C-alpha cells in the first residue's frame, strides 16, 4: 500500500484477466469453454440488462423522474417499493444460479459440467444473495411500505436515514452484480468460514467481494433496525397502544430489535476477517494465536437471529393475510404477540446448534439442543392460532391464502426436520449433508419467501391502485409449492444417504434418480418465477378492470386500508385516533370510516435528499476499490463519504409543508370516490366492480 504501489498499479489487481471469458480465450479446453460461456453469458446479462434499463429510461425521458421522484425520495412507501424491486431482481439471479446448481448435481455422477470453483461460486452467491439481497430487502421493503401506515404515522422516524439504508443495500447488491463481470466471487459459502476464507487459502478477490457486500448490507440493516424500532416506539397514532398494533407491526418491531443486536456481530466478524486479509492480522488464522472458531461463534450469533429477522415479518404477513381472508379477527392475538417476543429472545440462545460437531462437551450440546427445541413451542402456538383463526371464518382461497396454506403444511415438515437437527446425536449424522440444505430451504422457502410473496400480492393494490391477476397468481403459487416439494424432499433422502452439501460431483450412482427429481423441481420453480413475471405484465395490461382506488379491496382490518390506493405522500389527511385492535374494521362497523375530519391542518413532511443515493454510490466505489485494492480510489471515496456527511450536517430546510388545503382536496377526492363507488360483498372480490370499497354487515346468507 505504498506510494510506489499506487503509481505502479493504478488499477490495483484489476486487469484483463478479471474478465470472465479471459481464461477461456487463453486455454480453450472444453470445461473452460463451458464455464467461460456460462460466466460470460451471466456477465452479458448483467451488463446488457443494465444497458437496456438505462436505454429505456433515456427513451422515455425518465431520468429526472427516477432521480427526483424515486432515488432521492424519503417517502417510506417509495423506498419500500425500491427495496422490493431489488429483492425481485436479485431473486431472479439467485434462482437461475439454483437451477444451474441442481443441473450440475443432476449430472454430477463423476463430476458434472461446471468446474468445482464455478460451482462453489454459485452456491456462495446463491446463499449470500438469497439471505442478504433477496429476503432482507424484501422484508425491509414490505415493512417500510406497510408498517408506518399500520401505526397511523406519516413516515418513519428518520426518513433520510431510511434512504441511506436503501443506498447501502443497493450498493451491496450492485457489488455482487459487478462480481459477475469483473473477477470472481467467494467460494467459501454464504457463511465464509475461515481459515478457508483467509488469504492463505483464498487469495483472490472473491472473499473481498463477499466481505464488502455483506458489510454494506449489514450496515444498512443496522440503520434500518434502529429506524423501524424508533418509529414503532415513537410514531404511533394516539390510542395505538402496543397491544393494539397489528401483528405485522409487532413482527416488524421484533425483527427491528433483532437487527439492532444481531447485525453488529456480523459487521465485527467480517471487519476482523478483512483485517486478517488486508493487514495480516491473525484473528481467525490457524496459526499465531488466531482461532477460526471465534468467527464461527460470531457469525452464528448473527446468523441465528438473522433466521428470525427474515422469518418473523413473513409470519406477520401470514397473520394479516389469514385473518383478512378468513373475514375474521386473529385468534389468540395476545398469544401470538408473546410467541413472537419469545422467539425473538430465544433466537439469541441457540447459535451453537450450527456446530454441534465442533467438539463441545455433551452438556453444552444438550443445553443448546433443548434451547433450540424451545423455539418450537411458540412456533407451534403460532401455527395452531392461525388454524384457529380460520375456524368459524369464511376462508377465501386467494393467492396469498394459497401461499399461507402451503406455508402451514410445508412448514410443519420443515419444523419437524428442525427438531431432528436440534438433537445433537442426529445432527452428527445429517449435519453438513444435503439433509441440512433441505431443512433450511424447507423453513426459508415456505416460511420466508411464500410470506413475502403473499405480502406482495396482498399489498400490491395498496401501492399501485390495481389488483394483480388471480389466475396467474394462483398458478404461480402452486408452481412454487409443487416445485419446492420436488426440489427439496429428495434432498432429505440424499442427505440421509450421506451426500455432503456443496458437492460439485459424487461417485454414488444411487444419487442420480433423486437428483433428477430435484432438478425437475428446480425447473418447476423456474416456471413459478416466470409466471410471476407474466402475472405482473398481464395485470399491468388489464389494470383498468382491476382498479381499486378507494383502497380497501380485501375488506382489510388495519389502518393502511383506510387510505386511498395509492396513498397520498402524507398517508393520512389527519392522524387517526385508535380505540381498538383491528382499527379499520372497527371504524367500518361503527360507520366511522371515511369521515371528514373537523379541521385540516398543515402537514410537515421530509424533503427529498440526495444523501441516500450519494452515500450509496460512494459506498459502492469504496467497496469496489477495496476489493481490487485501488488505493487512491479508496482514499478518495473515504474522503468523499466523510465530506458528504459533514456537508449534510449544515443542510437547512429539511422539511416541506403540505398545506391544509391540499390535504383537504386530496381527502375529499377519496371521500367523493367512496360516495359514488359501489360497496361490494366478498362475492365480488375478484370482479371489476371491486374498486376498493367493502360492504359492511353480515355476509349474505344463502340457504
Amino acid at each position, binding site marked *: 500500500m505504498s506510494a510506489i504501489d499506487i503509481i505502479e498499479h493504478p488499477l490495483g489487481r484489476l486487469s484483463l484477466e478479471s474478465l470472465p471469458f479471459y481464461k477461456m480465450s487463453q486455454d480453450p479446453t472444453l470445461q473452460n469453454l463451458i464455464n467461460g460461456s456460462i460466466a460470460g453469458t451471466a456477465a452479458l446479462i448483467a451488463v446488457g440488462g443494465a444497458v437496456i434499463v438505462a436505454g429505456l429510461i433515456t427513451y422515455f425521458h425518465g431520468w429526472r423522474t427516477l432521480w427526483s421522484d424515486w432515488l432521492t425520495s424519503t417517502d417510506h412507501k417509495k423506498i419500500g417499493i425500491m427495496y422490493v424491486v431489488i429483492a425481485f431482481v436479485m431473486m431472479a439471479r439467485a434462482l437461475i444460479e439454483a437451477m444451474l446448481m441442481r443441473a450440475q448435481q443432476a449430472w454430477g455422477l463423476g463430476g458434472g459440467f461446471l468446474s468445482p470453483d464455478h460451482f462453489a461460486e454459485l452456491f456462495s452467491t446463491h446463499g449470500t444473495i438469497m439471505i442478504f439481497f433477496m429476503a432482507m430487502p424484501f422484508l425491509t421493503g414490505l415493512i417500510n411500505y406497510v408498517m408506518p401506515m399500520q401505526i397511523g404515522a406519516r413516515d418513519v422516524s428518520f426518513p433520510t436515514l431510511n434512504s441511506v439504508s436503501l443506498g447501502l443495500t443497493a450498493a451491496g447488491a450492485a457489488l455482487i452484480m459487478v462480481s459477475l463481470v469483473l473477477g470472481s466471487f467467494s467460494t467459501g459459502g454464504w457463511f465464509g468460514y475461515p481459515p478457508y476464507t483467509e488469504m492463505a487459502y483464498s487469495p483472490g478477490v472473491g472473499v473481498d467481494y463477499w466481505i464488502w457486500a455483506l458489510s454494506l448490507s449489514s450496515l444498512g440493516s443496522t440503520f434500518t433496525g434502529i429506524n423501524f424500532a424508533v418509529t414503532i416506539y415513537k410514531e404511533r397514532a394516539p390510542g395505538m397502544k402496543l397491544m393494539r398494533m397489528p401483528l405485522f407491526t409487532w413482527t416488524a418491531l421484533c425483527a427491528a430489535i433483532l437487527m439492532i443486536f444481531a447485525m453488529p456481530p456480523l459487521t465485527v466478524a467480517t471487519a476482523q476477517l478483512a483485517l486478517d486479509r488486508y493487514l495480516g492480522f491473525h484473528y481467525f*488464522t490457524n496459526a499465531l494465536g488466531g482461532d477460526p472458531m471465534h468467527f464461527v461463534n460470531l457469525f452464528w450469533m448473527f446468523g441465528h437471529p438473522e433466521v428470525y429477522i427474515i422469518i418473523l415479518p413473513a409470519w406477520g404477513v401470514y397473520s394479516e393475510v389469514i385473518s383478512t381472508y378468513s373475514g375474521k379477527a386473529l*385468534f389468540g392475538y395476545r398469544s401470538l404477540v408473546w410467541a413472537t417476543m419469545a422467539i425473538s429472545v430465544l433466537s439469541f440462545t441457540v447459535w451453537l446448534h450450527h456446530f454441534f460437531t465442533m*467438539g463441545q462437551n455433551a452438556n453444552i450440546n444438550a443445553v443448546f439442543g433443548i434451547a433450540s427445541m424451545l423455539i418450537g413451542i411458540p412456533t407451534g402456538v403460532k401455527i*395452531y392460532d392461525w388454524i384457529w383463526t380460520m375456524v368459524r371464518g369464511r376462508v377465501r382461497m386467494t393467492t396469498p391464502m394459497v401461499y399461507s396454506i402451503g406455508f402451514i403444511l410445508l412448514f410443519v415438515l420443515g419444523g419437524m426436520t428442525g427438531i431432528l437437527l436440534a438433537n445433537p446425536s442426529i445432527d452428527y449424522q445429517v449435519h453438513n449433508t444435503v439433509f441440512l440444505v433441505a431443512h433450511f430451504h424447507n423453513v426459508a422457502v415456505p416460511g420466508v419467501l411464500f410470506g413475502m410473496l403473499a405480502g406482495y400480492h396482498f399489498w400490491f393494490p395498496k401501492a399501485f391502485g390495481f389488483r394483480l391477476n388471480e389466475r396467474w397468481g394462483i398458478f404461480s403459487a402452486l408452481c412454487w409449492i409443487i416445485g419446492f416439494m420436488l426440489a427439496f424432499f429428495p434432498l432429505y433422502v440424499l442427505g440421509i*444417504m*450421506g451426500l455432503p452439501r456443496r458437492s*460439485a460431483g459424487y461417485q454414488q450412482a444411487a444419487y442420480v434418480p433423486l437428483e433428477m427429481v430435484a432438478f425437475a423441481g428446480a425447473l418447476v420453480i423456474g416456471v413459478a418465477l416466470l409466471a410471476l413475471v407474466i402475472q405482473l405484465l398481464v395485470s399491468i395490461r388489464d389494470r383498468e378492470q382491476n382498479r381499486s382506488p378507494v383502497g380497501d379491496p380485501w375488506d382489510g382490518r388495519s389502518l393502511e386500508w383506510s387510505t386511498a390506493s395509492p396513498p397520498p405522500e402524507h398517508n393520512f389527511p389527519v392522524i387517526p385516533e385508535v380505540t381498538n385492535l383491528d382499527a379499520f374494521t372497527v371504524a367500518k362497523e361503527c360507520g366511522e370510516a371515511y369521515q371528514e375530519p373537523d379541521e385540516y391542518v398543515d402537514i410537515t413532511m421530509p424533503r427529498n435528499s440526495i444523501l441516500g443515493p450519494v452515500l450509496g454510490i460512494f459506498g459502492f466505489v469504496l467497496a469496489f476499490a477495496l476489493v481490487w485494492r485501488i488505493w487512491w480510489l479508496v482514499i478518495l471515496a473515504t474522503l468523499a463519504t466523510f465530506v458528504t456527511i459533514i456537508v449534510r450536517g449544515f443542510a437547512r430546510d429539511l422539511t416541506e409543508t403540505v398545506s391544509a388545503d391540499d390535504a383537504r382536496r386530496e381527502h375529499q377526492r377519496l371521500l367523493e370516490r367512496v360516495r359514488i363507488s359501489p360497496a361490494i360483498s366478498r362475492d365480488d372480490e375478484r370482479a371489476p366492480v371491486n374498486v376498493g370499497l367493502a360492504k359492511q354487515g353480515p355476509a349474505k346468507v344463502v340457504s
Partner: protein
Amino acid sequence: MKVSRIMAAWRHWVGKASNARYALFGAALLLSGCSGAPHFSFLDPQGPVANAERWHFYIVLGIMAVLVAAPIFLVMPFVLWRYRYGNKRARYAPKWKFSRLIEIFTWAGPVIIVCILGFFVWRDAHRLDPYKPLPSDQPALQVQVIGYDWKWLFIYPKLGIATIGTLGMPAGRPVSMHLTSATVMQSFFIPSLGSQIYAMGGMVTQLNLEASRPGTFLGENTMYSGKGFHKQKFTAVALAPDDFKAWVKKVRNTGMTLDGDVLKTIAERGTLAQLITDLPPAASHDGSVYLTGVTPTLFRAVVKSTMRGTRVVPGNGSTPAHATTTRPSLTKTRGKP
C-alpha cells in the same frame, strides 16, 4: 454351478434395479442389501453408534409424526373445507378470537411435546457424545487423523504405519480417533459407523467409532474445503482381527517411508489421485497410499506446527528452529488428553 450362475444373475439384476428402488422408496429400502458397494447411510448401520443414532432418529421422527404432523395434516384440510367461503352453513363468528381453554391447550401441547423430546436430547447427547469411549472388553485401536487438502491421513501411532484413502480397522473393536487439520476446517464422517466431527487446525477433536462386522464403508469430508472437496473420500474397511493383522503387516511391508519430503508432498493441495501421480511408489493396488516408519509424535508435531504457522519435519517430532512467534501451551484440546 448352475445355482451360482443364477445367483450371479440375480445379484446383477438386483444391482441394476437398485437405482429404481432408490427413486421409489428412498433411503430405507435400498440401503438394506447392496453387496460390494460401501455402506453409506446410518439407516443401514454397521456399528453401535450409527445404530443408536438410527433408533434415535426413528423415535424422534415417530413422536413428531404422531404428535405434530398428523394432527395438523388432518385438521388443516378439514378446517379449510368446513369453513370455505362457499359454505354458508358453517358457523361464522367474525369476532370470535379468544378462548381460555383453547389457549391453554395451544401452549400446553407444544410444551409437553418438547419436554418429551428434550428428554431424548439430553439422554442421547450424553450417551452418544463422540468423545465418549465405547464400551468393550478390548482396548480401542488408536488412530490419529489429519485432514489435508483434499485427503485424510490416518496414522496408527502404535503400529508405526499410516494410510491415505483406506482406513483399516478391526471389526468388533472400538476405534478411538484424535483429529486435526493441517489446512482449513474439515469434517470427518463415516455415515454408516457413526458421528461426524470437525477437524481444525491447531486443535484436536476426538471421535469414537466401532464397526460391528467386517465390511466397507464410505468415508468423507462434509465441510467444503476447496475445489477437490467432493473427491475427498475414503473407504473405511473393517476386517476380522486376523485379517486386520495381515493388513497391517502388508502396509508395513509395502508402504513407503514417511519422511519430510513425502509429508510435504502430502501437504500440497491436491486430491488422492494427484498424490498417487506425485508419489508412485506409495500407491497400493487398491488406489490407496500406504506409509510406514511413522513416528508416534508426528500428529502432535503437525498440530503444533499448524498452530505456529511453521513447517513440520517428521522424525524428530519438533518444529524447525527458525519457528517464528511461538505461543507454547496454547494447544486447544478439549477435555482430558
